[in-house]
């Protein structure tokens, strides 16, 4: 067993060359993946005219908060858009989690005749990318008066995230031992109480995964919001930024776009870093990833 010490945890031999390569490659790759994002952060505190000018040492480090101030007070007011995005993302996360938890419990623990067909429909809907059915979806939502409505956007985003959520929650409930429920039933607890009290701590990681994915997907969702919203007051952050970029509010100020990008980035980075284990757990072998997740 003397060779064990020279092996790493995957069973491969650990050599000095490998350690050096790891240090060099790791440091280099760390830079490649962090510098562009950090650079984006830096750009947001540069004035717009410096961003588009050839770098001049005299002005390049004139840092300012004016982009962020302008986004709050200026003509391209992004605060409203941030609010809309937040409402849509939070409601999508809540609704997706509730519906997916109920359906996951139903599929994992209940036997009913329609179950196989119902489950097949859920899986089949994963094969229908919303990007491809956008036109009829738009017409239908228009008919239902759900275009130009944040509610409509929430329902749309929820549907996109549901199949993945149902799969995750079904697995979460399946891994809970049945005896727990049995004893709760004997105590006379209702189905609702069993899920919200007895099973809650056990399914919470799954629910967190579903909520996190739904929030992040809704927060960055672009094509749907671009298509379904025409009322400026309802724009979500990405759509409002496209309008900034296209000069709807006058001259393009790249400083605003840099600041908007940072605002868009913050919740993603914070939530991901804080809740990383749920994110990675949800990934599994990629079975739940729908085209909506991939093309985002």
């Amino acid at each position, binding site marked *: 067993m003397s060779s064990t010490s020279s092996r790493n945890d995957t069973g491969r031999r650990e050599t000095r060359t490998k350690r050096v390569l790891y240090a060099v490659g790791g440091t280099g790759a760390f830079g490649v993946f962090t510098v562009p*994002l950090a650079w984006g952060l830096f750009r947001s505190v540069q004035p717009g005219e410096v961003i588009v000018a050839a770098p001049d040492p005299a002005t390049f480090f004139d840092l300012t908060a004016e982009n962020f101030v302008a986004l709050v007070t200026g003509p391209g007011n992004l605060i409203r858009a941030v609010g809309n995005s937040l409402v849509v993302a939070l409601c999508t996360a809540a609704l997706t989690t509730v519906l997916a938890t109920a359906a996951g419990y139903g599929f994992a623990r209940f036997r009913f005749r329609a179950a196989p067909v119902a489950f097949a429909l859920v899986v089949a809907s994963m094969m229908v990318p919303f990007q491809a059915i*956008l036109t009829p979806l738009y017409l239908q939502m228009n008919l239902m008066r759900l275009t130009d409505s944040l509610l409509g956007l929430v329902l749309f985003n929820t*549907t996109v995230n*549901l199949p993945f959520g149902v799969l995750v929650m079904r697995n979460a409930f399946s891994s809970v031992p049945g005896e727990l429920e049995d004893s709760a039933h004997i105590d006379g607890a209702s189905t609702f109480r069993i899920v919200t009290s007895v099973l809650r701590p056990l399914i919470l990681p799954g629910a967190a995964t579903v909520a996190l994915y739904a929030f992040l997907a809704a927060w960055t969702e672009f094509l749907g919001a671009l298509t379904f919203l025409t009322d400026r007051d309802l724009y979500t952050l990405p759509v409002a930024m496209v309008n900034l970029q296209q000069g709807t509010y006058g001259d393009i100020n790249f400083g605003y*776009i840099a600041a908007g990008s940072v605002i868009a980035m913050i919740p993603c980075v914070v939530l991901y870093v804080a809740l990383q284990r749920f994110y990675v757990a949800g990934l599994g072998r990629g079975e739940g990833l729908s085209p909506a997740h991939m093309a985002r």
Partner: protein
Amino acid sequence: MSAVLSAPAAAPTDAAPARRARSLTHPPRTGLLLVAPALAMIAVFALAPLAFALGISFTNWPLIGEVEFAGLTNYVNIGNDLGFLRAVGYTLLYTAIVTLPILVLGYALAVLVRTRRRGATLLRTVFFLPFVVGLTTLSFIALLEAQPGSGAVNLVLAALGLTDGSTAWLVDGRLATVLISVLVIWGVSGLTMLLLMSGMQAIPREVYESADLDGASWWQQEWRITIPMLRRTIAMSLVISVIGSLLAFTQFYILTSGGPGSATTTVVLHIYKRAFVQLQLGSATALSIVLVVVVALVTALQLRLLRGEE
């Protein structure tokens, strides 16, 4: 269906022997009620539009005015729709460009972080960050940095002596394709990394220990053990990135709007413009149906791969 809903609650003892005893703690009716809301959402917002799409695709469907039945006209016209054919060609080209680099970079990153070496957890987090931030935001950042004379892309290339720093990346079809491809490869390879890494960590260490005893080199272990054992995971991540590329929209809409001309117009962007700029909903929907079929075929492959794994 109605039998399930209205069946009298029979005691488990007198149920027919061929039938499964009806659970008292988990009544079928409750199960149906639990899955109904999610199912209703999927039926209304995913499956109904699909059925609707099939219907629309056989009409001229203008936004205003009489709807006329058009038979297969929309589908027949696809063959003459040069814009669509060009978009298909461009999307396939783009998919061909980015797929292999995403896999290779994702694999390399996975090799880097698959062990429990110091810092590996931090590196995993960092490599996955761009994917979490999302292509929408990444595209806006890239937009600033692609500007001639001022963007970081040009500054770096000029500093390296490769260009004079005045390259206008986004107004040239080829250059824009290069820029967007690099952006996407950088932005999404973290997903491939995570999928491959989980696969690599599941390979029993004994396999490598005995390979070592047989004197297999690092390359031989990678080629003869890791890659063959990861075959399905690799196929899965390929399918995932191919579907993502076939549906590409955001980065092109933000960075080039499909231009110059239609040089960087992808299929989804073409359909979007056909429907919401030119307002030809019937023909746009016929194109959508084609896309649905293609993506469904690739996704079916994904599910098949997963089933084979079990």
